[in-house]
């Protein structure tokens, strides 16, 4: 049994609506500091919607509405005075498909810093190198930092996106199926990276791969039809889950 971790972020009685459609029902979930939490469940179960609530990405959808609360270090991220840009700096995101900007490798990583008003070239160069190293990409790109990011392989592009997210020094990293478009070797690199990154970051990952959830996460949360059905230590969830729906889903007996 692992000792209880400090809770970095938590959702309380969270409901989410797309217009009249209620996509999330009363979700209560804690995220421990420096833990990896995997959100699993069938397509349409609300796991990605929930992930996007955590850095208010859903604000971009005009008809959406949130009820309940999400607290980061004790502060409600949906409070009126919250600066969403600042929130997204603290809660970074990596998407399913690598989406580098059509710029150089260096500029991709420096982008967030520049948007945040950083002008110090030496500082930017140091942050770019550190971020690329943390994303386990530095050795592969250090001699071509000023080449186009679009020339990188898919796996390298995804690690570049992780480096880009890390450059602005987030505290939480949200990953929405970060390896689903990658080959097994690139997937393994991303998974190894998650193991390393959790020393410094709290990571929340949505994945459709049960094996990936089992390999990378400390905690697994199972969603079904907008509800959080069961959450617990990944080892327990994949050996003796308590809930029949969880058991049926992870063993492929669903439906």
């Amino acid at each position: 049994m692992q000792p209880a971790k400090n809770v970095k972020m938590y959702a309380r009685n969270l409901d989410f609506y797309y217009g009249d459609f209620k996509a999330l029902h009363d979700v209560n979930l804690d995220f421990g500091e420096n833990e990896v939490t995997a959100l699993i469940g069938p397509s349409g179960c609300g796991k990605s919607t929930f992930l996007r609530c955590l850095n208010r990405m859903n604000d971009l959808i005009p008809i959406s509405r949130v009820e309940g609360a999400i607290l980061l270090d004790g502060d409600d991220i949906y409070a009126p005075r919250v600066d969403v840009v600042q929130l997204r700096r603290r809660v970074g995101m990596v998407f399913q498909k690598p989406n580098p900007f059509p710029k150089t490798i260096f500029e991709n990583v420096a982008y967030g810093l520049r948007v945040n008003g950083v002008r110090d070239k030496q500082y930017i160069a140091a942050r770019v190198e550190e971020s690329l190293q943390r994303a386990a990409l530095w050795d592969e790109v250090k001699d071509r930092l000023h080449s186009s990011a679009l020339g990188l392989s898919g796996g390298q592009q995804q690690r570049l996106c992780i480096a880009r997210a890390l450059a602005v020094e987030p505290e939480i990293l949200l990953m929405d199926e970060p390896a689903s478009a990658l080959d097994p070797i690139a997937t393994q690199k991303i998974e190894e990276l998650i193991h390393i990154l959790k020393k410094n970051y709290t990571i929340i990952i949505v994945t459709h791969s049960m094996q990936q959830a089992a390999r990378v996460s400390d905690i697994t949360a199972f969603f079904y039809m907008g509800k959080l059905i069961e959450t617990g230590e990944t080892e327990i969830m994949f050996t003796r889950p308590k809930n029949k729906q969880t058991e049926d889903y992870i063993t492929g007996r669903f439906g």
Partner: protein
Amino acid sequence: MDNHFQKEIEELRLKVLEMAAYTEKALVQANQAYAERDTDLAQQVIDNDYAINSLECDIDNLSLKLLALAQPVAQDLRIIVGIMRLIVNLERIGDEAVNIAERSLILAHRPPLSYNPTLEELAKVSLEMLRNALTAFKDEDTDAAQRVCDMDARADELDVSVIKKLIDHMLKESPAIERSVHTILISRSLERIADLSTNIAECVIFIVKGVNIKHRCSRI
């Protein structure tokens, strides 16, 4: 509707039940060969052990294939890991039946002991434990499995009693030493079969409930 993987799990379970039937038959015949001094039956137990061994290999290979290819979790993972543990115990019970048959062959060519320790009760208890453990596996019945675990102390008692009586007998009649030793070894095999049946019952509890009660690792 069962998917392809669940059909393979069912196939695996059926193979275990087939191996169980061979093993149970070997024990029944070995006990009978000893009790009736039947050398043909004893030889049959020895000759048929290959079937149990061969099924163990088949089940092992199928389990390994399912672990590698299907990457099972939860109840599917537990049943495969549980079966891999279970068949090791089943195969050893087959070996113990062979040991009993081999001793019975030797004893059948010697005059009967003037003191007959009657292994009947121990043979009955160990066979009952094996049968109940296998039924518990077939029915996924943890209560029945727990009752098998609880019977083990009785088998230990009976074994100790047989050994004590035969040691006394050997002290009185030295020409009976060789036959007594063979008889003690049969008693020891029956006691081991009770232990191995307990292990099978523990596997059933692991498969169904996901708790490991071996060596009191955790309690239900």
